[in-house]
């Protein structure tokens, strides 16, 4: 093994060990910014991948993004057209931004988001997809203009990114397990009637909506609560005090 590769390994393990001592999400931002800047990274974001009903702003965990870019990105809902996000959903391996395919001719908005990012010194990037259990999907995407990305640095970056993401996720989870506004009023209602032993058909009649709509609310609540079925969703909603009987 070359000395340089060994250096990256030592650096990566020291970084990972140091994460345990961080006590707030801001500490993670700072630690990541410091260490990843050694590889040329200027900006990064750790975010969940929003389902069609979620907004991008709701699922962001941590970010160090240039002033203004976040607002533009959210306002234009770029998360739905971003080729980086798209590739994240379809691969488990980290990739360089340049490896995320899109068609400049037919996917105008995809080209737009990549072009406008360049205006904010987010020219090249490296992205780590996260695929957890219960359908949890997220990514850690980082960027800059002069990146040290090579077969020597990538394994260390890959490993550090994964641990940094986990530390952030864990710290945010303890801060607030689930935001109170997580469920819509209709989703809460559907769960309350489920907790009372009503079927989706019964609930539909009570609320004056179709059984299909009730089921859609339950499914959406299951996703938000990372529950595998209705029973678990009810249990979690009670546990997090999102519903009361």
């Amino acid at each position, binding site marked *: *093994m070359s000395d340089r*590769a*060994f250096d*990256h*390994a030592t650096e*990566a*393990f020291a970084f*990972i060990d140091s994460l345990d001592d961080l006590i707030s999400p801001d500490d993670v931002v700072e630690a990541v910014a410091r260490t990843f800047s050694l590889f040329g990274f200027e900006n990064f974001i750790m975010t969940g991948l929003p389902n069609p009903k979620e907004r991008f702003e709701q699922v962001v965990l941590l970010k160090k993004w240039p002033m203004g870019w976040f607002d533009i990105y959210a306002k234009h809902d770029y998360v739905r057209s971003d080729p980086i996000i798209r590739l994240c959903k379809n691969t*488990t*391996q*980290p990739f360089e931004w340049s490896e995320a395919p899109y068609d400049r001719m037919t996917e105008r908005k995809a080209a737009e988001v990549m072009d406008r990012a360049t205006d904010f010194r987010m020219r090249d990037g490296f992205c780590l*997809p*996260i*695929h*957890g*259990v*219960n*359908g*949890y999907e997220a990514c850690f995407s980082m960027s800059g203009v002069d990146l040290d990305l090579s077969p020597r640095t990538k*394994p*260390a970056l*890959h*490993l550090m990114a*994964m641990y940094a*993401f*986990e530390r952030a*996720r*864990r710290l945010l989870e303890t801060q607030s397990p689930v935001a109170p506004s997580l469920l819509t009023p209709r989703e809460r209602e559907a769960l309350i009637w489920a907790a009372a032993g009503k079927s989706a058909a019964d609930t539909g009649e009570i609320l004056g909506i179709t059984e299909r709509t009730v089921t859609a609310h339950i499914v959406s609540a299951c996703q938000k609560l*990372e*529950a*595998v079925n209705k*029973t*678990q969703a009810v*249990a979690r909603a009670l546990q997090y005090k999102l519903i009361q009987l």
Partner: protein
Amino acid sequence: MTKVHVITRDNRHLYEDPLEEYFRLRHEVFVKERGWRDLHRPDGREIDAYDNGNAVYLLALDQDHVVGGQRLYPTVMPHMLSEVFGHMAQRGIPRAEHIFEWTRYFVIKERRMGRTDCRLLAAVQEFCLQEGITELTAVVEMWWLPRWQQTGFKVKPLGLPTVIEGQPCIAAAITISRESLDQVRRLAGLRDSMLVRDDQMSPVLERVPHVAA
């Protein structure tokens, strides 16, 4: 209801059929699906040098059919990390009587969306806690790490990721703990023990041959 059965040399005669199915599924998953062609065997049963009397299998069975599996092997014996993947553990290979290697983990395709993963993960924590196994070592594809972490596993990397068969993989050590067991159960909504075991089974640590590590 899916339960995880503990199979050792003491009781393997009671599990002839599931074990046969298990070796065939391993071939299906690791050779056909993942493309680890080195493991290919003409009879369609993936069996290696570590499928011997020292191995402990934790198989997820649903109505007598295997839906997932995993294998534990003593690290004081020559094992995969010491014999094959040593270069991946730049920080050293943990070896002790109470440390086991964890290999050949899989869930069949049809069950990957459900709770079978969590059942297997809960089972391995529970079994190790019962047996006094304090740590597991494993070589896994990197994408497994966030899954483990999300389920509360405490994972220490033993080296940097290395590409094997086109996939970045890592050697890691997992600390067994009650908190990890509680977390994976909480996440999957599993209330009770997943394990089915023979009360007569001799303790695993006492069966490990005493050899110099």
